[in-house]
């Protein structure tokens, strides 16, 4: 987007206003991605913090070759991977009490969906990470399979497979809950 290119150029010149606008524009998007991948509010907030601080640190030399949104999403994904590596050395953090926010005007519908989303989050956290990444980056990150394949260092057909298996597992987990 042209607006993003201009924002990046202004950030490169050290504009505080532009930096704030980049943060406001992408903070929720990155938090949703990070939380979707980590299922951990505090860790997801840390990821968002680190992504923006790193962006500010390199802003003066920053060269944007693709989209800013894609760039930030890739940074978030890389930091999520770092967090997951850290987790293997530590006990898993307790899930934060912050509930997911649902875009719905109907309060009753909202409660039902919030419960459903909570179950979905649990289910997402139980599928293998590579599949989770394919599902979240594609559906929430709007990334193309080709871009995800590049990130994971595998072929596009492998990503297709991981995405499909991931969705199938989610469906099967959520449907088995319904049957119980």
């Amino acid at each position, binding site marked *: 987007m042209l607006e993003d290119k201009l924002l990046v150029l202004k950030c490169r010149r050290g504009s505080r206003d532009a930096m704030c606008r980049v943060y406001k524009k992408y903070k929720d998007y990155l938090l949703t991605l990070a939380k979707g991948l980590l299922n951990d509010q505090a860790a997801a907030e840390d990821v968002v913090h680190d992504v923006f601080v790193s962006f*500010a640190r390199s802003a003066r030399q920053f060269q944007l070759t693709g989209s800013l949104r894609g760039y930030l999403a890739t940074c978030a994904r890389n930091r999520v991977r770092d967090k997951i590596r850290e987790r293997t050395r530590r006990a898993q953090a307790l899930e934060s009490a912050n509930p997911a926010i*649902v875009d719905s005007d109907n309060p009753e519908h909202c409660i039902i969906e919030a419960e459903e989303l909570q179950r979905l989050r649990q289910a997402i956290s139980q599928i293998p990470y590579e599949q989770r990444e394919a599902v979240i980056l594609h*559906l929430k990150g709007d990334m193309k399979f080709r871009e995800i394949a590049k990130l994971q260092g595998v072929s596009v057909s492998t990503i297709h497979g991981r995405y499909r298996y991931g969705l199938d597992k989610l469906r099967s987990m959520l449907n088995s809950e319904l049957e119980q």
Partner: protein
Amino acid sequence: MRTAEDIKRLIKILTDKTSAQMDERVLKDVLFTLEESKKKSALTQPNIWRTIMKSPITKLAAAAVIIAGVVLSFTIWDKTTPTAYAFEQTIQASHSVQYLHIKSFMVSISDEPIECWVEFDPSGQIKNMRINKPAWMDPSDGESVIVWKDGKMEFWIKKKNFLFIQKDQEIAAQVLSMVEQFDPKHAVANILQAQDEGDTEIEIDEPENKAEPVIITATFPVENDLHVQRSKLFVDQATKLLNKLETYQLKDGEYIPFITIEFYDYNIPIDSEVFTLDNIPSDAMRVDETTQEIGLLQGDLTDNEIAAEVVRQFFEALIARDYAKAGRMFGGVPGERVQKKYGHIRFIRIVSIGKPVLNPATNELKVPYVVEVEENGIITEWKTKYNYIPVREVHGQPGRWATTGGPLGI
């Protein structure tokens, strides 16, 4: 039972929002880091002219860059200088500017200015713009004109009878951002922003005669490695608007005039024809990247694979004498133009297409190749004189790749 579509829908509405506390914490750290990086970059700021010369889009934006360069680096040392004039007055006055005409002179090179007309929208953003580039800026191109209108950039090179139209956001943003820099309110705002950063001396001369301008002189330390060592701003005392900006380079202890920018016709409406390229000859070569699909779609191919494929299909089209297709591979050049250039050559076969190599300066992939051709009755191999073709993603057409010609210029 939930279907896969239900799961997709649920994932898509999954939304987390940051809290006010988180925003405060992150922004505090982000802005602190940005300030720290500014301090570091002030020490290592490169010579802007060297940067300009290395930029792959120099040709398109050079006029804007030359005007912009002089106002990028204002810093002030003495912010307590006693004077009735305040920088904020000029910024305030400049906010109401809707139309502006600018002339920029490279004093040591030519008397002929780079001219620019800008129309701002009510929010102060550039709406329309035209730059007239004189021939001295690029003798190989001669005079040229850049017009930015409705998000579209038109680039007209009279000497080459060539009109290039594109809508690439990267280039548009670069040009607009640079033009923003010679918006006079930015020139003065940059001074204010830099007040806490620099070690530059500043003097303000405010004549009693109100018909004479306020002159602000900023002198920069030589060790900053900036392209100018002194700048003077001339501010109209009545309107508080910037009338002129002069820059100087220090050579042998003397400040030599470098670039002068003059600001005219504040808020005098600019005729819409100024932002329209007319009188383009009917036989001009017209490459419009906004109305045709150029090159090949990448699909699942890697960057190297698509670059090699573009070159292969380009030569296959020449072998088949399908000049329209060759033109599409060649950045959208009309088929007649390709035929005019290569129609007399018989392309016999592709001998080899090698592994592409990235050119980091231009972000293009250089694809080596060898083809067998017959020219003037002599069969030969092109492999030394024309030993590679650059290929890149088409501006404004994500996912499509084409060659930009390189040594095979048309």
